[in-house]
């Protein structure tokens, strides 16, 4: 494949190169390494991580001083690749075209006579930004290689963790009453934003009885009303038990049935329609 060179018609590649001066010496021919066989393009495109990578390769292989890049041959070489890639219908990332435009712009700016007022030489060099990016990228590229070379668990070494003789009994978290209090404090504090929770001591006792009664009714069958009262609790206990039952009824957690007046009263969990006593 003959690669078209993006050079002015009057210039042969030799002339174009001769225009460039490397380290003060006229560059008569591009270093051989700058050329990559065109049929290797596909491999090359895969091998490079992007336009910066390709440019770095061209520069480093040609032993060009990165701080004084000969823009004309580099741009020509770069465009050659881009053109060839496009000609081979390889999927070319937009970044390669963007870089081509950037190189052409730098090249053309360097051809322009420098305005005399541009005193700050270095800043005026149109290549400065490109050089900065190339160097930063190269640094990260080398860093990537070093990180890859760094011994890595699983690939280069294994952590030692020999079996421990006895299986240690799993420790369960400790919870103190204080923890519970603090937890509740947080809840209340958050809830206060919406509404106020008032939970009183008596109510708690009722709630405890509610739980107890629900447990008694846990089987799903009927339990005689009287059996839910523990006489040893004394009058206050009986009242609380009764309040608990009322509360359960109110919250529709239990059903109360009585087949006839003065017949035994039965309770069961709501929703258990089956087995009558």
């Amino acid at each position, binding site marked *: 494949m003959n690669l078209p060179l993006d050079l002015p018609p009057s210039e042969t590649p030799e002339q174009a190169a001769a225009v460039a001066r490397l380290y003060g010496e006229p560059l008569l021919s591009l270093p051989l390494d700058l050329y990559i066989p065109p049929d290797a393009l596909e491999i090359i495109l895969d091998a490079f991580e992007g336009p910066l990578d390709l440019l770095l390769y061209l520069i480093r292989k040609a032993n060009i001083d990165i701080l004084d890049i000969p823009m004309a041959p580099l741009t020509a070489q770069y465009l050659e690749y881009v053109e060839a890639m496009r000609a081979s219908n390889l999927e070319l990332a937009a970044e390669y075209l963007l870089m081509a435009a950037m190189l052409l712009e730098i090249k053309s700016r360097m051809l322009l006579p420098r305005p005399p007022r541009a005193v700050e030489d270095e800043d005026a060099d149109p290549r400065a930004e490109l050089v900065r990016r190339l160097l930063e990228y190269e640094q990260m590229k080398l860093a990537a290689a070093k990180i890859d070379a760094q011994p890595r668990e699983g690939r280069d070494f294994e952590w030692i963790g020999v079996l421990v003789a006895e299986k240690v009994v799993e420790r369960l978290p400790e919870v103190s009453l204080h923890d519970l209090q603090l937890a509740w404090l947080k809840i209340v504090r958050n809830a206060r934003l919406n509404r106020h929770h008032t939970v009183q001591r008596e109510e708690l006792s009722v*709630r405890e009885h509610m739980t107890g009664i629900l447990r008694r009714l846990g089987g799903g069958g009927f339990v005689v009303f009287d059996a839910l009262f523990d006489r040893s609790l004394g009058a206050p206990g009986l009242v609380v038990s009764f309040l608990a039952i009322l509360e359960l009824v109110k919250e*529709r957690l239990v059903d109360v049935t009585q087949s006839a007046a003065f017949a035994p009263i039965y309770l069961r969990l709501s929703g258990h329609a089956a087995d009558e006593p």
Partner: protein
Amino acid sequence: MQPTSPDDWKRVLETALLGAQAALPVSTLRLLFDQDPGPETVRRLLDELRVDWEDRGVELLQVAGGWRFRTRPEYQIYLDRLKQERAPKYSRAVLETLAIVAYRQPVTRGDIEEIRGVSVSQGVIRTLESRGWIDVVGHRDVPGRPALFATTRRFLDEMGLRSLTELPPLTEIERIMDLVDLPHTPPTERSAENVDQD
């Protein structure tokens, strides 16, 4: 590092066994060598290795699956000291859920979510159930029949309480909170101390 002597190969064996996650059979260990020395040689080296480790805190053992390094049981009391430090803690979600079940029982998961203002994961409930601190005591008779949770006898026992009425009273807490009245700072150590005296 190019092992040549039997001692070198013993180092390779030792390294492989120390770095292994499971017991290694002799048949596997033979793969380590450049040239298979046969099972007898490997066994002899393993025996030597076992002797080398005899006065250490780790021993080389022959178990069902092959050979394996293990810490000696005599050292366990020291290793246990390291575990003490990492006593696990329940998350805030678990503690708050427990508090709500304790103070508001019986409650559904929906109730808990309503009070906390956030959804309660199944994991939180399961943590408390598997700890044996809460269980299902019934179902509320509403669509979906959600489970009603309550604290267990074991919860009271492990908290050192005779009954739920011995839980720290909430009215006191709320009173303190009203006095302190911090709009967005969680209760300070001061209020926590006050709570302790209740």
